[in-house]
């Protein structure tokens, strides 16, 4: 707080100007149309019937206004000042908002107006000639006003509307805005969800987001990286959270957003004492108990177990005999080296890149899995066998479908022998044999791109899930219009820590009413409230103040409450 003001200002500007490569929101004609775009020199936008490059936008502050300007090189965007008004000698006043202009008391009205399209003497052809000759949109609008027989007799307000309409058609404007989640759901509803769910620093927010990912984005924005977000899902395939990429999240924020299947969270919560309840753990020769796993301190340099350029063999069965899954023949696994540099906010675990090569004799194709071995917060060192236990997790490696490979590996710090078991999860799988040999090396490769290893919405590790199972989430937000709220509550409220707030958004009221009734009956929650947010915007102008003509009648309902023990 003791920084000087210019430093602060420039720091703030960093978040308020268009940076090359970032995602921006184009507000075309003041709310007529919104599009996302990337601020590259090569990006184009279509305005009216011309295409313009977005290059002039780079470096400008958000809120800047641009208009199309013609010149011999082709149409391009120029920044305009918002004070720039269309000058017209026919305009009967000087100040739009001056108190002197009382439209209601003016002596003009529309009693003589005949709406038969003959008022404008400028023809379409003449207008197109003007355009061809390079006249700016503004000039065209001024010419239209000058050639309109009825303009003089219009009321002030009517003249303004006329000008605005012509301007939108002939001189469309773009305002460059910072993408923000509040543009998707009606903004008051989204804001209400975030407040009712007490989304704030160091929260662990559980989300059932079936609204395309923007609920997750909104919570991500509000947490700013301080805390964790688990966007859960109940389908077998991970829902796409692609929208998260449009919000220019910092790596800190991105890294706080996870996804995890609901069954995993439920399992972890119901077996609070077992952290690896979801994984097949059979560490051969490993004698520590699960309780130990959480009682020891992270070794100072866990990487010493795997020295650079050292081949480490893993022996052991790939899968349980009972769990054989078929490989899609010929599937090539993508190799991707990613150095994982986890920010200190996450889970205190240090990621480490490991290249695991598996030779599949049965199918005679060799493939490599690249991923991260996460060293859990506490891992145990068995004095006798000097084994260190790590959990292995790799994600999203394959071209088709997604493979999550999880398992547990024990590394003998003396012989550098790795052994353990790996299990495949979800769609694509492979058939294991007992003779698969796995080699592990560590690779000190550079960042492929930090984004990928810390991308928003990546799968939560076993440790993370276990943590949430032990402590519970601090709040829940549900945005699933096609799910029955009561069913969702029954399964998900137990995942919350006691006295945690929750809010369920639904487009229909009746399912929420039924859910509320049952929650009350079963005493699962108190402070239950079924609310419908209402929003109305006003036009405030001298003697012209009234609510907007267009209004949103409804934007859904929210059921909020606090979980009781």
């Amino acid at each position, binding site marked *: *707080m003791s920084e000087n*003001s*210019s430093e*602060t*200002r420039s720091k*703030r500007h960093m978040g308020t100007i268009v940076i090359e490569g970032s995602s921006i929101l184009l507000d075309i004609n003041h709310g007529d149309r919104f599009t996302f775009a990337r601020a590259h020199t090569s990006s184009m936008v279509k305005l009216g019937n011309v295409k313009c490059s977005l290059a002039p936008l780079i470096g400008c*502050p958000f*809120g*800047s206004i641009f208009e199309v300007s013609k010149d011999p090189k082709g149409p391009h965007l120029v920044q305009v*000042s*918002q*004070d720039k008004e269309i000058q017209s000698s026919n305009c009967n006043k000087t100040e739009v*908002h001056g108190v002197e202009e009382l439209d209601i008391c003016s002596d003009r009205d529309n009693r003589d107006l005949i709406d038969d399209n003959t008022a404008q003497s400028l023809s379409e052809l003449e207008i197109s000639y003007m355009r061809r000759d390079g006249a700016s949109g503004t000039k065209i609008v001024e010419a239209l006003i000058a050639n309109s027989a009825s303009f003089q007799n219009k009321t002030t307000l009517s003249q303004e509307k006329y000008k605005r309409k012509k301007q939108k058609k002939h001189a469309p404007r773009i305002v460059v805005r910072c993408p923000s989640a509040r543009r998707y759901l009606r*903004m*008051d509803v*989204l*804001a*209400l969800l*975030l*407040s*009712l769910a*007490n989304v*704030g*620093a*160091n929260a662990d927010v559980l989300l059932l987001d079936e609204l395309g990912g923007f609920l997750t984005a909104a919570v991500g924005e*509000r*947490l*700013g*990286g*301080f*805390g964790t977000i688990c966007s859960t899902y109940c389908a077998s395939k991970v829902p796409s959270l692609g929208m998260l990429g449009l919000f220019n999240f910092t790596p800190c924020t991105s890294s706080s957003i996870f996804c995890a299947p609901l069954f995993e969270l439920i399992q972890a919560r119901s077996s609070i004492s077992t952290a690896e309840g979801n994984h097949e753990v059979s560490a051969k020769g490993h004698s520590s108990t699960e309780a130990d796993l959480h009682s020891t301190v992270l070794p100072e340099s866990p990487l010493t177990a795997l020295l650079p350029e050292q081949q480490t063999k893993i022996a052991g069965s790939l899968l349980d005999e009972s769990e054989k899954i078929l490989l899609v023949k010929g599937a090539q696994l993508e190799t991707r080296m990613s150095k994982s540099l986890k920010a200190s906010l996450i*889970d*205190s675990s240090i990621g480490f890149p490991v290249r695991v090569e598996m030779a599949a004799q049965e199918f005679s194709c060799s493939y490599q899995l690249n991923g991260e071995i996460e060293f859990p917060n506490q891992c145990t060192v068995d004095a006798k066998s000097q084994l260190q236990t790590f959990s292995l997790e790799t994600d999203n490696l394959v071209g088709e479908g997604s493979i999550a490979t999880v398992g547990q590996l024990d590394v003998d710090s003396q012989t550098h022998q790795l052994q353990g078991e790996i299990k495949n999860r979800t769609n694509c799988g492979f058939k294991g044999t007992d003779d698969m040999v796995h080699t592990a090396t560590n690779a000190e490769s550079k960042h492929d791109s930090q984004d990928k290893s810390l991308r928003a919405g990546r799968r939560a590790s076993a440790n993370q899930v276990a943590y949430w199972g032990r*402590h519970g989430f601090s709040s829940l937000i549900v945005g699933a219009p096609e799910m029955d709220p009561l069913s969702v509550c029954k399964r998900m409220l137990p995942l919350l*820590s*006691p*006295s945690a*707030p929750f809010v369920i958004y639904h487009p229909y*009221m009746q399912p929420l*009413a039924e859910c*509320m*009734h049952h929650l*009350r*009956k079963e005493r699962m929650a*108190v*402070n*239950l409230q*079924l*609310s*419908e*947010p*209402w*929003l109305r*915007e*006003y036009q*405030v102008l*001298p003697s012209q103040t009234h609510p907007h003509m267009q209004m949103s009648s409804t934007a859904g*309902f929210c059921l909020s409450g606090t979980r*009781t*023990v």
Partner: protein
Amino acid sequence: MLGVPRDQRTESAECLIREGDVVIVYERHDRMKQATVCKGKEFQNRFGVFPYCDWIGKPFGSRVVGKKGIGFVYLLKPTPELWTLVLSHRTQILYVADISFVVGFLEIGPGKVVLESGTGSGSLTTSLARSIAPLGHVYSFDFHELRAEAAREDFKRNGLGSLVTVAVRDIQGQGFPEDLVGRADAVFLDLPQPWLVIPHLGRYLEGNVPLCSFSPCIEQVQRTCEALTSNHFTDIRTFEVLLRSYDVRTQTFGSLSMTGVKEEIAAENLSQVRKLSGQKRGRDGLKQTEPLVMQGHVLTTEEVTNGKECIPALSSSSDIGLSKNPENTGVERNSSERIVARPYPETRGHTGFLTFARQGSNLN
């Protein structure tokens, strides 16, 4: 009140009630109070007497019973939303509909610096503090010294002392302090005459910083918007937000028989239920749940307390046996209990208008 970073968390701090904690005491729907746990003292309400030492060590979210088993309440962990409903009103306050909209529209988040005038009872301030934690700050101003002090104490009790600075200052007359120029990420005004301050806000809002002004009267809003326009503010928008709350209950509806006679059976059952349940009324705030036996079938009655009335309602579980009751032959299943919702007739109406604006961005 605020979340604690993971590496500083301990089981007890997060979940269990300790001496000195601020607790939200939930008595029933629409009735909550704040309490500070103090060993040796007691919390009293119309339902019973509750010694604080019984609460210590229990997790938040627990239901506790009063002395001699009389009465019960739920103990909730404070959040800014609950705090708004239990704080002592020294002034008219903002409620969650306006608060959430302001925080959302001003894009307030971790690390931001917010200027607020006036502090009032600290309702909005508490939510602002939650949103800017842990690295941001709220500079709040009020011209009333005693109220400023009361607000300071509230923030301290809720663990927000390091995030909020309350100063006594007449913003309308003097403007914001010089040392805050260029440091704000958002400004909120709740003043009787905000148009007096607006011409002097330019320096504080440089860099596309958003401003919000809250005024109950439309005349105030008009003068504010005029001042904003003539001082070259842009994106001026005025809104009104409200929350419509729904009353959810169960109700039986009559139906007509083939001959056009109103089926009275359901109503009869209902009065029977009422009679029986009357005997089982407990002395707690919430009525007891008791099984009833009628004609050999077990019915579960339950009284759902909401709003000002209590309505005995039949459970919608399938063991209701209503249709099997000999008295009820011919009654369709759908003439019995239904879960219905309608808005509360009495509801919080207008609070104020919210006007947002930004200082125009400078062209290079």
